[in-house]
C-alpha cells in the first residue's frame, strides 16, 4: 500500500497542506512543535479513523477553526487507486468516505489501509498499564481480521451487560440464571479474542527475535509472553472456549461478589522478556527501544503475510536512545523491505547524503518544504 498524495486542512497546526509522496522512505524533519507528528497523525487517521493521541476529535481541529478535512490518495499493490477522506466539524460530527461512498460504520474501513505506528506513547507499552498492551493487540488484529474487530465490539457490549447483571444479582434483584444469556455470548466472543491473540503472539515471537538480533547485533532471546486470566494452552479455538467456560463457572461467586467480570480477554496482559527476565525490570532504555522497533517490524511482516498488502509504517521520533550503529541497522532494515515509511526526526543529517529512495521533507510551522 502506498500513500501517493495527502491533503490536510485545519488539522492541528497544519492549516493547508498538500503533499505528493514519490519516495518510499519519507523523512519528516524539523524543530520541535513544527507539525511532524501531526502529519503522521493525519495519515494514521486515514487508516484507523481515530487519533492515537486523543479520543476527542475536537482537539484535532486547528484552533479557532470549525472543521478538519484529511484526504489521502492510495495506490494498491494491484495498481488500483482509491481515496479515503475523513471530515470532522463541530456541527456535523465525523464523516468517513471511501472514494465517493459515505461509510456508515467507520470500523468497516479498518484494514483497508494497514498501518503500523511507533509513537512516543508506545514507549509506555513496556512500562505502562495492561490496557495499553491489550490495545496494541486489538489494533493489530482488528486490521488483519474483521471478525476479530466485530467480536471485540460485541464482547465489550456483552461484558457491560453481564457486569450489570452481576450487580443486580448481588442486590438480590435478579436470578443467577439471568447470567446465562450473557455468559454464552461472553464465552463465544471472548474465546475467539483470546485464541487469536495467543496465536498472534506465537507468530510474532520468532520474528521479533530475528529483528532484534539484526538491529542489536547481539544474540539475545527477546520474547512476549501471553498472560491469560484463565488457563490457556491450546491449539484450537474450541479448547479455548472450554477453558474460558470452565473458569467463568469457577469464579461466578466471586464475580457476583465484586459485581464485575474478573476473567476474560479484558483482563489479559503481555509480558516482554529479555533472556527470560522481564524487560520492564531488566532492560535498558536503548534495549527497550530496540525491542519496540523489532516488534513493529515483526508486526509489519505478520500483517503483510495475512493481508497480502504491505502496511504503511509511521515511526515517530524513533532514533532517540539508539546509538549510531543501531540507527544504521534500523535504516538498513527499512530500506530492505520496500514498505512505505514515514519517519519523523529533529535531526536529518544522518540521511543528508543517503540513497535515492529517501525523500527529505522539512516541516516548518505547519508547512512542508521538499529538499530532494
Amino acid at each position, binding site marked *: 500500500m502506498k500513500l501517493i498524495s495527502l491533503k490536510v486542512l485545519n488539522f492541528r497546526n497544519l492549516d493547508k497542506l498538500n503533499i505528493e509522496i514519490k519516495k518510499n522512505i519519507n523523512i519528516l524533519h524539523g524543530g520541535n512543535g513544527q507539525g511532524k507528528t501531526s502529519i503522521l497523525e493525519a495519515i494514521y487517521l486515514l487508516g484507523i479513523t481515530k487519533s492515537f493521541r486523543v479520543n476527542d476529535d475536537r482537539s484535532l481541529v486547528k484552533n479557532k477553526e470549525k472543521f478538519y478535512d484529511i484526504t489521502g490518495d492510495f495506490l494498491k499493490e494491484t495498481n488500483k487507486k482509491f481515496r479515503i477522506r475523513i471530515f470532522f466539524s463541530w456541527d456535523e460530527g465525523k464523516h468517513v468516505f471511501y472514494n465517493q461512498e459515505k461509510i456508515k460504520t467507520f470500523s468497516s474501513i479498518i484494514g483497508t489501509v494497514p498501518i503500523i505506528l511507533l509513537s512516543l506513547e508506545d514507549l509506555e507499552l513496556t512500562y505502562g498499564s495492561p490496557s495499553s498492551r491489550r490495545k496494541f493487540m486489538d489494533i493489530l488484529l482488528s486490521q488483519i481480521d474483521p471478525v476479530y474487530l466485530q467480536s471485540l465490539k460485541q464482547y465489550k457490549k456483552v461484558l457491560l*451487560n453481564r457486569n450489570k447483571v452481576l450487580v443486580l444479582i448481588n442486590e438480590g434483584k435478579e436470578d443467577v440464571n439471568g447470567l*446465562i444469556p450473557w455468559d454464552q455470548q461472553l464465552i463465544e466472543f471472548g474465546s475467539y479474542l483470546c485464541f487469536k491473540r495467543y496465536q498472534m503472539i506465537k507468530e510474532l515471537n520468532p520474528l521479533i527475535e530475528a529483528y532484534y538480533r539484526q538491529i542489536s547485533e547481539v544474540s539475545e532471546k527477546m520474547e512476549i509472553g501471553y498472560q491469560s486470566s484463565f488457563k490457556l494452552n491450546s491449539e484450537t479455538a474450541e479448547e479455548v472456549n472450554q477453558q474460558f467456560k470452565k473458569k467463568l463457572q469457577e469464579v461466578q461467586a466471586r464475580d457476583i461478589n465484586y459485581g464485575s467480570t474478573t476473567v476474560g480477554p479484558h483482563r489479559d496482559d503481555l509480558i516482554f522478556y529479555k533472556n527470560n527476565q522481564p524487560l520492564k525490570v531488566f532492560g535498558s532504555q536503548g534495549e527497550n527501544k530496540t525491542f519496540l522497533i523489532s516488534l513493529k517490524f515483526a508486526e509489519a511482516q505478520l500483517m503483510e503475510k495475512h493481508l497480502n498488502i504491505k502496511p504503511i509504517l509511521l515511526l515517530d521520533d524513533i532514533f532517540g536512545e539508539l546509538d549510531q550503529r543501531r540507527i544504521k541497522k534500523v535504516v538498513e532494515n527499512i530500506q530492505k523491505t520496500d514498505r512505505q515509511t514515514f519517519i519523523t526526526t529533529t535531526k536529518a543529517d544522518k540521511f543528508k547524503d543517503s540513497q535515492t529512495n529517501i525523500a527529505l521533507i522539512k516541516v516548518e510551522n505547519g508547512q512542508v518544504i521538499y529538499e530532494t
Partner: protein
Amino acid sequence: MKELGISALDDLIDQFSQLPGIGRKTAQRLALFILKSSPEYANDLANAIINIKQNTRLCKRCFNVAEEEFCSICSDHNRDVHKICVVEDIVDVMAIEETRSYRGLYHVLGGVISPLSGVSADQLRIKELVERIQNENIEEVLLALNPSTEGEATIIYITRLLKNFNIRLTRLASGVPMGSHLEYLDVATIGKAIQSRQDL
C-alpha cells in the same frame, strides 16, 4: 435560522424536533411548510395524529397495532395459525410483512433483554408468548430478533424457556449482518433470511 418569537411556530418546532431522526433544522423546515400549507392540509394532519392515538390499541393476542380487539393479521383467516414469528417491535412486523415471505402470526415482545437500559426479561411479553404456545396449537416459533448482543441474549433466554415444548424453534439465518437493524435492512435480505431460517 433565528427564532422569531412567535409562540405557535416555536411550539410546533419544539414538537417536531422531539421526533426520532428530526434535528432542529429539519423541524424548522417542517413547521414552515405547515405554516404555508392550506388550512385543510393542516387539519387533516392534526386529525391523523389524534386518530392514531384514539382509534388504535394493541392486539390482544400478538400486541401488534390494531383497530379492534385483534389486529388485521390475527383476524386474517388465510394466515397460518400454527406459526408465530417473535419480533422486538411493531416496525419489525411491518418490515417482515413487506417481504411477503411469511404467512404465519406474530408476537411483539416490546423490546429485548437489556440490563444496561434497565430492561429485564419479565418486562417483555415473554410470559404471554409461553401462554400462547400452551393454549394455541403452535407448531413453529421463529425468533426474528435484531442481531445485536441484546437480541441474542433474548433468543438464548427464550430458547431455554421453550425447549421442552413440542414445537419447531427457529431463528433467522445469520446472513443478516451483525449490528444492523431489521428495519433498515432491505426487503430482499429479510425475505432470504426468513426462507433460510435455522433450527435451534
